[in-house]
């Protein structure tokens, strides 16, 4: 089984309908209507010929309504299973450790899309043009994918097969589904990667039985056994997060402001989760409270943030959380500087962009950025951080966040294939990935992810079912226009037990 039935319906829907009674009732109505029409027929005939066709139209409309009633009465919802007969495939009995290299010659494989004796082909699709935020998405993600493939191929590939990215499709922001179906229809690639602002096509790729590796900013779109999200398999969007409590403690803040966009549910829920975190952990983090909360900011902040910052200032805010994009964070920082709040630190959700922060001068000085991966500024230790930096820069590219995710995703794709064994196919790779990548750190670059269960969006109540075993984050702080790791750079991850949102002191640790 490679895909889940679409939510919102159940297989029993079809059984719930009652076509017989619906049909009889509909027919009766229709007969009554016809009978009435016959009664009037002779009387109105002469008039009708002199009139426009309104009467006829009305009768046609009535007949249409009756037909609609008939059809509606015989309706149910499909469970979608007729279009998806894929069988569940078990991973091979022998599992392969993360990152194990393969050295043997290619075992002949036939009938697997995108796999030849010399190559394993992948496609990628996502946002390049029309991105209103102007961030580098698919292009940067692909740089990471290509860098990892280049590295892996230099080591011999997968049993002699080279990993190649054969097509890169721009979804122009709104055509993700179209591009996904192009890939599915072409049927010439083994798996796919996606970094998109709107992942409407992800489920289609998964439904076609292809493994899909994505930049996971849309947990609902990524909820599928065949979709592997990075840097997190899945995200509890409304959970209070201990890392926010820790940052508040670190900043010694007591009066918190939280901002979110009104038009983006993602931003709104994220802002509410921060508010919940402050309320939940208040007693443990020095009595902090949210004194200013606004999750109705107009997208793009066309009217500026003057009144909002004034309100924050009046309330003595000493730490600002922004669940808004990096451009709006800059606007916020400018307005805070204008109103004499330049020294108040902010906590960013989306601003891990070295160039952006450097170019902003001292606007973000002292700010915090929380990330779900090993920051570039951390010590590499035994991780693959230096390997990533080395290979991504071979083509003259800077190591950036999306390239990092691309590298991690490509590595997961490789590890899944290796785990599936020499006679791999798509279903085996998906199954093997779900079975073996359950403490997965992609070479120490991300906190451990359990892909065996992180395909369903968890809530506070289901964290123990669908969350990771540990809940880890890193924090960087802006100093002199650059990021530096909060705490010990050799142990960049702050971790809490994954099955609870209760407060506890974090354990600072490292992963390999």
């Amino acid at each position, binding site marked *: 089984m490679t895909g889940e039935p679409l939510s919102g319906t159940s297989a029993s*829907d079809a059984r719930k309908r009652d076509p017989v009674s619906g049909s009889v009732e509909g027919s009766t109505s229709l007969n009554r209507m016809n009978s009435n029409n016959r009664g009037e027929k002779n009387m109105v005939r002469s008039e009708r010929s002199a009139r426009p066709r309104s009467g006829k139209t009305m009768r046609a409309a009535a007949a249409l309504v009756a037909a609609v009633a008939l059809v509606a009465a015989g309706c149910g919802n499909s469970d979608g299973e007729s279009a998806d007969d894929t069988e569940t495939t078990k991973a091979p009995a022998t599992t392969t450790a993360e990152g194990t290299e393969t050295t043997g010659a290619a075992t002949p494989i036939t009938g697997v899309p995108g796999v030849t004796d010399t190559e394993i082909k992948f496609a990628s699709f996502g946002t390049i043009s029309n991105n209103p935020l102007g961030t580098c998405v698919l292009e940067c993600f692909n740089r990471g994918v290509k860098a990892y493939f280049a590295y892996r191929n230099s080591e011999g590939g997968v049993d002699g097969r080279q990993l190649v990215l054969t097509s890169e499709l721009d979804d122009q922001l709104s055509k993700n589904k179209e591009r996904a179906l192009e890939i599915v229809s072409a049927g010439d690639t083994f798996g796919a990667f996606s970094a998109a602002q709107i992942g409407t096509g992800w489920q289609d790729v998964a439904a076609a039985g292809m493994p899909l590796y994505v930049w996971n900013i849309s947990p609902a779109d990524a909820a599928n056994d065949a979709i592997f999200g990075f840097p997190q398999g899945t995200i509890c969007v409304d959970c209070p997060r201990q890392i926010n409590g820790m940052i508040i403690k670190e900043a010694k803040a007591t009066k918190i402001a939280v901002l979110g966009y009104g038009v983006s549910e993602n931003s709104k829920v994220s802002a509410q989760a921060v508010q919940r975190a402050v309320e939940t952990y208040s007693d443990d983090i020095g009595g902090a409270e949210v004194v200013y909360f606004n999750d109705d900011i107009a997208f793009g902040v066309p009217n500026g943030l003057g009144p909002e910052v004034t309100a924050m200032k009046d309330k003595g805010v000493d730490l600002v959380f922004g669940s808004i994009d990096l451009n709006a964070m800059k606007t916020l920082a400018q307005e805070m500087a204008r109103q004499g709040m330049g020294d108040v630190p902010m906590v960013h959700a989306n601003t891990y962009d070295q160039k952006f922060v450097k170019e902003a001068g001292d606007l973000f000085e002292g700010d915090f950025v929380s990330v779900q991966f090993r920051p570039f500024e951390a010590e590499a230790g035994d991780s693959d951080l230096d390997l990533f930096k080395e290979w991504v820069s071979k083509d003259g590219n800077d190591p950036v966040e999306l390239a990092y995710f691309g590298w991690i995703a490509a590595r997961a794709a490789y590890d899944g294939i290796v785990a599936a064994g020499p006679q791999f196919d798509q279903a085996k790779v998906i199954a093997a990935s779900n079975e073996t990548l359950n403490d997965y750190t992609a070479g120490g670059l991300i906190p451990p992810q359990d892909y065996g269960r992180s395909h369903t969006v968890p809530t506070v109540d289901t964290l123990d079912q669908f969350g990771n075993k540990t809940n880890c984050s890193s924090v960087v702080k802006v100093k002199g226009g650059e990021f530096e790791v909060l705490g010990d750079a050799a142990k960049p991850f702050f971790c809490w037990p994954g099955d609870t949102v209760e407060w506890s002191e974090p354990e600072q640790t490292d992963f390999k």
Partner: protein
Amino acid sequence: MIIGASVLEDVARAFLQGLPPGTVYALVALGFVLTYKTSGVFNLAFGAQAYVSAVMFFKTRVEWEWPVLPALVLSVFVMAPLIGVVLELLVFRHLRNSSAISKLVVTIGLAVALPSLAEIFMGFETQSGRTPEGVLDQGASVFYDPFGIYAFSRNELVAMGVAVVAMVGLGALFRFSALGLQMRAVVESARMTELAGIAADRVSASAWALSSLFAGVAGVLIAPRFNTLSAADFFHLGVVAIAAAVVGGLTSLPKAMGAGIGLGVLIAEINTFLPRFAESRAWLRPIQDNLTPAIPFLVLFGVMVFVPAIRRSRDASDPLGGVDPPPMSIGSVVRTRQQVLVRAAVTAVLTVVVLGVVLGRADQSWMYLVTQAVVLATIFLSITLITGIAGQISLCQGAFAATGAFTVYQLVERYDLSALPAAFIGAGIAAALGALLSMPVRRLGGIWTAIATLAFAYFFDSVVLNLPFVGGGETSLLTGTSVPRPLVGPFDLADDQAFLVFCVLVLAVVSVVVVNLRSGTLGRTLLALQGSELGSQSIGISPARSRMLAFAVSAAIAGFGGGLLAMQQEDVNYASNFSPFVALVWMVIVVSIGCRSVGGALQAAGAFVLFEPVILKGALFGWLFRDPERIPDFFPISGKWVLVLFGLGTIMYARHPEGMAEYGAHRKAAKAERRRRAAEDRATAVAVDVEVAR
């Protein structure tokens, strides 16, 4: 007393905080008024023109690192007026006798086309963090605090100064200069001014150069307010600023400027005080939550509905317009009953053949695209009804379609209802919404209906969509907005082929409904209203009732189509399918190709969905050469060309409101008719000769 002083200070501070955004609205509003006064065109493309200059300034300053002066000269004083002159020469000169609504449609097309055209030719893409620079050094980081309660940046002070100078200067131009008088005179009557020895064309070109120059100035001054340069921001800004321009009746510069600043101040005051009041008054909280982001659109909608000047305004018409050759009559193909039957038969056969090929040969991707085209054709028929038959420009068809789609989602999600009956309920709710909307806007007519519906579309986008019982709220974030395909009797429409057949049947039914409506009482009533509203009223036609019915039926069709689209994609996908800008593009494409006929809607949907994959991505060449490998290297061509070509295609609308499709058919039919008559004449001549010879 202390509290009073504090409140006064807060009021004053909010006033000052509202000045910078208010100045931005004022600049755009001045641009609207300037263009309207000098050209008679309500230029919805003003924001797009401003964006083009802002992009050029950005390229020269930030990317090419030119000094300010040459960058300013090129982007504002050379390129902007040049664009204006080109638009006047190629487009608006030929539209002098066209209706205001035709000109508005053309500017909507330009608003869609110009940003993409500029981005293609300048190689520009929005880049985060690359903040547009102002005209002064450190314009965003050096502040001045003249009143001691709120500081202004250099950029903001420059913008305010320019706005004041522009208002005074332009006012003086119109009041005291010969050129200003000539510009206004040309708008009133180009012919009359020519009789007075004034070269109307030259004056008109100067007017467009001036208004475009102002667009350039506004673009460069506005850009630094956004930390990233994006066409969407400029369009959005333009929509908001319409309210200010309308308050000035599109003619008063001081009123437009005052209204623009007033809008900025109003928003700042509300953002200052509403949250405070809401803290102690729980009933205000939902208003703050839901309405705050939509204040500009509520103001715009309110201005449209409640400012009486709007209803009194009439299209200016040149009293000597008759001197010019009359505009071409709207082409209409008149067919005999036999021709109609043959055509219907050919269409049916063709549909069956195409459907057969698609069902038999198309892969999943092409099947999806063809189905999407069929579903969109159904939605586009709502535009055929409201624009082609009722003569109203509605820019909120996306909101109606989204209403249908979200109704299906909610009814399935909450009540486990089958998607198909849910779609009918969605159509009903959309119809009610359409009828409700038509009440305030039905008296507006002309361009104002278009603008009011645009305001409604943005209101829907920023408020209605966020209501949990519409957009799903947090649930949609956690589980998406998935919509299942229905089962219809024994047919499981989860099968793509079955669903395509079902959609074709729906399209056929809706087409028949639209054709019947057009030829029935409603259609004739609406056509009569287009001809003469007063005349229609004199024979007992109620414009209000007829337009309400047209809006309701059109919304119902759009709503049902929206539900169908959600079923097809098995998700609502609001951002991709129904956003205000997407709906604007729908209108542009339908109007370009033909909004008066069912065929026009079908072709428009085909073009909207298939133009890019078939033409721009080179699939056509692949089919012709029977080898995808032989597609020339210059493919794929940027998808932005779709917006450019169909945006510019609206230019056709002013001269041929029947659209490209019907115009082509009309020409073909006229040619055939001429040939037939010539043949008849020849036959008659031969017969006469024969008779004479006998």
